[in-house]
């Protein structure tokens, strides 16, 4: 029994190790007995890490990072790569962000395959489906990813998903698991969603109140941890149970909606964007207009992951932050 336990102990590599999700995931992996070693990869060292974590600096946006990464992975004998090198904070250079997310993901893909790692876990977004008027009430994983034209943030991630899709077809021996998270909210994460909710006076469209989902940051980290050991592959929607109206979400997180007529809303959002105050960028107006509810049934049934916070509590975690 103890022998098989040692065999089952995984060596995990985490890219983007200083990011929000990694900061939540690494402590979980420290505690997890099934994880033998963690190789943290980023440009700078993660602030506080325990004995299991080894740091290896690699700049993913650089040419040649694939070779460096493949060497590091092979040397440590990594089994599972968790690719979290995505930028959720405010982006000062869109071209750099594109380099990192799209090119960087491609490097990680090839390096993982070359190092003969077994699995690759990549977080994604349900927002990639795009909020469209013709969408059904529950979006399944086979819905095409329409993204949001004009949003670099979403379009880059759509490109990443497309790369993963193509790679999966051509290299079936690498198990790729994509977790499409509903907007991640919580006290520590910083992403466009939380920045928008934290402005407390949230402009919305008068006469519209679309349905939203969220997921608590701890549940997102737990989902990633669960995915390391799960026997499934493919794409899964992961969201907290329950659905909130946009006004309900804003109210639960401690803010208030400011409904504006369509034209005025566009102008207000544009002005806020120009002035640098965090607000929902113009291309994302669709999300405050149409519903976007993803069906997370498969993640519960096939993947076996059950979130511990429901939508209401996840939204409430933003209060007072």
């Amino acid at each position, binding site marked *: 029994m103890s022998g098989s336990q040692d065999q089952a102990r995984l060596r995990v590599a985490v890219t983007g190790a200083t990011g929000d999700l990694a900061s939540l995931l690494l402590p979980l992996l420290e505690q997890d007995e099934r994880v033998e070693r963690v190789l943290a990869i980023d440009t700078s060292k993660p602030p506080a890490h325990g004995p299991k974590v080894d740091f290896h600096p690699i700049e993913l946006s650089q040419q040649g990072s694939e070779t460096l990464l493949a060497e590091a992975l092979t040397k440590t004998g990594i089994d599972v790569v968790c690719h979290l090198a995505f930028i959720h904070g405010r982006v000062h250079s869109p071209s750099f962000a594109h380099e990192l997310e799209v090119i960087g993901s491609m490097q990680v893909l090839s390096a993982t395959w070359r190092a003969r790692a077994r699995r690759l876990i990549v977080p994604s977004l349900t927002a990639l489906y795009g909020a469209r008027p013709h969408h059904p*009430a529950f979006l399944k994983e086979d819905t095409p990813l329409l993204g949001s034209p004009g949003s670099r943030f979403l379009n880059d991630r759509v490109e990443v998903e497309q790369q993963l899709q193509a790679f999966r077809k051509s290299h079936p021996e690498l198990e790729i698991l994509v977790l499409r998270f509903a907007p991640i909210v919580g006290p520590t994460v910083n992403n466009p969603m939380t920045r928008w909710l934290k402005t407390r006076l949230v402009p919305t469209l008068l006469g519209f109140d679309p349905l939203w989902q969220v997921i608590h940051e701890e549940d997102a980290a737990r989902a990633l941890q669960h995915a390391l050991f799960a026997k499934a592959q493919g794409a899964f929607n992961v969201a907290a149970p329950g659905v909130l109206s946009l006004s309900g979400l804003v109210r639960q997180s401690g803010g208030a909606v400011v409904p504006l007529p369509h034209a005025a809303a566009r102008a207000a959002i544009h002005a806020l964007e120009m002035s640098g105050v965090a607000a929902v960028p113009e291309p994302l107006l669709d999300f405050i207009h149409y519903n976007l509810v993803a069906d997370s049934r498969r993640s519960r049934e096939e993947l076996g992951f059950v979130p511990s916070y429901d939508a209401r509590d996840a939204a409430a975690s933003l209060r007072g932050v």
Partner: protein
Amino acid sequence: MAKGVLGNDPFLRGAAPREEKAEEGPPERGPAAVSRRPAKPRAAGATALGSERPAPARPRSKGKNGARPSRLPASVSGKLNERIAPGEQLAKVDGQALPHPEAPEKAAVNDRPAISSPSPSPTTTPSRSPSTPTTTTTVELGGVEENRGRGLARLVRLLASTSFEKAAAAARGLGRALATGLGVGASVCLDDYGRDAELVRALEPWSAFLYQRYWRVRVQGVERVPTGSAILVANHSGALPFDGFILHLALDRERPELNQSRWLVEDQVFHAPFVGPLINRLGAVRACPENAVRLLEENRPVIVFPEGVQGMGKLFRERYQLKRFGRGGFAKLAVRHRAPIIPVAVVGAEESLPLLYKLPGKWLGAPYLPLTPLGPLPLPARWCVRFGEPIEVSQLPREAAENPAEIQGLTDRTRETIQEMLAAMLEERSSVF
């Protein structure tokens, strides 16, 4: 005036029931006066502590020692509670005296001397003689206090009455619906399709009014709706989409044991501002095959209107003439998911919201603006909803769904059945309103 200033002397009118009614007012509504009244069983002989106490009793204290207790309108509660001396036993329950609910407050407020003189004070123990004319003192104090007392008592009675309660509930429901329409509803108890159970409950006064009193909906044949999944196909009528909601209500009331039904609305309604979110929170679901499939898999009755917006766009003179039934989507669904088709005929909706004319609506982004007699308000026509015999599809193989002839046959059959039912019901109808 032995009858008393307010004409409501409890001992003369046997007003104990009224007092209890006033006492039953829920604490959180109305003025503090009602809420502060101790909701406790009355000991025998206990007297009214509340509204019937004439206000003029208080000013007497002023003459006594100049101390001026707080007066209305600052706090009705203070006014009424002053009747009770601090620490006074209000009643005995099981031999134990109940403490005064406002005891600490009383000490601060009630600095005046006992009102007892010149007549037995209303604040003395419950055991005082019923024949004590407590109200006689008021007569001596003059007309102003009398009127104030009368007005106060009337106000408290009004606020304690159930009709006020109902009006307040209706107003709350309306406020909630308006908030939902504007998009500031902030509800957190939505089901996965967006239905807001609290909103529906809050609108219960209105939906009950519409269903029972305004439209007097009569339902026939509801026992024909099977348990489990079923597709209820109805004619779409009226300029505004009330019929889905009324059918949903009818199933809810007449067949509560069934899984909760949902009705499908067309995009033009679902994505319309104000109406869209509201109708979604009431239970409407966007009409598309994926949604219908999921609802059927949940074993619900699904209400569909194959005429679509064309059904709503019928002018009044074309009423009850069914339009084309689309491409037969409901028939395919029925065959694929083995769900029986129940034809439903609704009579009365056309007359409630007759579409008199289609005004140009392009400037608003709508294909047309409906011209109805009272704008968005419906007329009080009588509604009659008849459920027809189920059209079973279980004998057809699943592949029949791909056979256009079969599907067309089913669609036509359903349409004819509904048209016949409508004709019969219109024949039988004695009056429109």
